[in-house]
């Protein structure tokens, strides 16, 4: 049996090599200290109170250690207040954590609701928000009850294969400008871009970041799979405003073309099911063939879609679309001959 009510055992730290867990212990000590007092605690008090700080060889070493620890606690979401000029002693800053700002408000979930939360946490299971979702679930379960793991016949997953996802999301939430290298598919080398990110969007199985491009002075959309290298901070947090409730999904969708043209194509019976579903009209043509009318936006991108059907699809009109398909078929033939 072990109990915490025994003699506190404070190891001698001055000469001891760092051991795993020591920093956690120090962070926990700092948190208790900042939560314990109604009054803000000055750095001098903090340095005396925690053995690691007291043992630091210089004021500068202590300052660096303390700043790092303070940032670590803040990055976990611990609301450390900086109170300027406490104790009337002319400009000495103090720090504190108020209980009502620290604690999750009272909330309780039914067993069925916890199961839904469990399913929600699993959505990110294989993605970069997985640890955040699990942490959140543990906090919400603290009030009692546990998510049951029985299936309700619906399973959802989001994947984030792009390593830049977390950086763009964090920067968007903190309103922090970023810079990154970006390579468009038609460019051989990446170029550096400067962005005020508003948020990330999943559309048709790709992630995008939307924001204000500082070089172009306009709203731009970037596909995360085309970002190369690291996303770097490019300014302080909170240094720009995001529009009120921007429809990020709509901004990404705008990149897609509209329907302005109508094509007439012949399709072999039983083939090209996807074109048939998209067609405005389908009627029988010669035996073995159907005639389809389809609305589309851009000749070149619609030709990309048609050409794959090979001999099962023939473009009758318009002429520009037919020419685009023929050009592609000739290129494919030449490439295939070169390869074989």
């Amino acid at each position: 049996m072990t109990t915490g009510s025994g003699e506190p055992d404070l190891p001698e730290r001055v000469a001891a090599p760092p051991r795993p867990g020591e920093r956690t212990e120090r962070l926990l000590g700092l948190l208790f200290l900042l939560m314990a007092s109604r009054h803000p605690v000055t750095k001098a008090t903090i340095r005396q109170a925690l053995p690691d700080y007291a043992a630091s060889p210089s004021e500068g070493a202590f300052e660096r250690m303390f700043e790092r620890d303070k940032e670590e606690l803040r990055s976990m979401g611990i609301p450390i207040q900086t109170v300027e000029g406490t104790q009337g002693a002319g400009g000495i800053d103090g720090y504190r954590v108020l209980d009502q700002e620290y604690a999750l408000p009272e909330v309780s979930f039914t067993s069925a609701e916890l199961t839904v939360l469990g399913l929600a946490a699993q959505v990110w299971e294989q993605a970069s928000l997985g640890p955040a979702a699990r942490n959140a679930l543990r906090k919400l379960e603290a009030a009692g009850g546990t998510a049951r793991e029985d299936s309700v016949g619906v399973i959802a997953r989001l994947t984030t294969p792009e390593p830049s996802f977390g950086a763009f999301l964090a920067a968007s939430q903190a309103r922090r400008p970023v810079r990154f290298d970006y390579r468009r598919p038609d460019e051989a080398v990446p170029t550096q871009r400067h962005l005020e990110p508003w948020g990330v969007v999943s559309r048709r199985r790709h992630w995008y970041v939307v924001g204000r491009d500082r070089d172009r002075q306009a709203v731009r959309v970037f596909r995360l799979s085309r970002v190369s290298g690291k996303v770097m901070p490019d300014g302080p947090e909170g240094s720009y405003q995001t529009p009120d409730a921007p429809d990020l999904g709509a901004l990404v969708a705008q990149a897609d073309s509209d329907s302005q043209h109508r094509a007439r194509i012949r399709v072999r019976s039983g083939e090209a099911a996807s074109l048939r579903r998209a067609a405005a009209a389908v009627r029988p043509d010669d035996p073995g063939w159907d005639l389809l009318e389809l609305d589309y936006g851009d000749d070149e991108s619609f030709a990309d879609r048609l050409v794959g059907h090979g001999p099962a699809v023939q473009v009758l009109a318009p002429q520009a679309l037919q020419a685009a398909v023929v050009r592609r078929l000739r290129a494919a033939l030449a490439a295939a001959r070169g390869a074989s």
Partner: protein
Amino acid sequence: MSSPAGAGARLSRLLALVPWLLSRPGITLTEAADHFGVTTDALVADLDLLICSGPGQQHGELVDIWYWDDGTVKVLDPQSLGRPLRLTAEEAAALLVALRVLAQVPGGHDRALIDSVTAKLEDAAGAAAAGRAAVSVTVEERVDPAVAECVRRALDEQRALHIRYAGAARDQVSERVVDPVALLSVDGRPYLSAWCRSAGASRTFRLDRILACDLRDEPAAVPAEAAPPELGRDGLRPAGAAVTLDLLAGARWVAEEYPVDQVQPRAGGAVRVTLPVADERWIVRLLLRLGADARVVSPPQLADRVAAAAREALAAYPTPSDSEV
């Protein structure tokens, strides 16, 4: 912009652990360790650290927890850690976005329940709930409501289904009898995971490609050997023969769009990729589309198939000069 690791991650666990144990007096060490995904030894190390901590070092100023190595845990005095830490913007966004995705999955699951969870979570998250605005998941695949309802009933009543399915590989419609297992949504796209009697194997069907759906008057019979639904992008990748292509700059999107096993840079900005191909007709369609931007490396007979398809297709159009083809 850093991820919690090491000391920070452990402290997060400690802060969640105390209130969690507090509301479950007498829970076993094993259960608690399982729940937090750590070994019993790691949990005991966490408890050892906690009981040496507090606002002071005097009796009554330390966290007090009773625990036995093979027994139960009870928090006697949590000090100021009795309540869990507030949700961060990232944590709130993770759960709120996931709830919205679950609500958007077609099917008849309990949306009122998802709404009530969302409302409570928004209240509890407070200002952090605004973090959700930075993530948007577009669910745009058009699913026939009749198909969604039919699939939902089949799952509820555990009945077999007859479907007309527009497969992507051949772009042809097939008729199949399937035994439904679950509805999946991966990156906003809905799927039915089922045992396909025609194929004699587990298959994943895109809901927006199910053209018609009929319930059959027989119970679903998923064989015991059927693989469980595979989730995530890798679960949906095709199994099949490896095809190797050289992609020029104009075709590099292929490596982004489809699951590829290897990407090697080549001279002149090209890349060499190897990808699994379940159906040859699919890769022939892709190569027709890529035209001059792609070259077949292997298998060589694939290039012959592409050439034959292109020649046959071109025969339908007037040719400015025969020598060109």
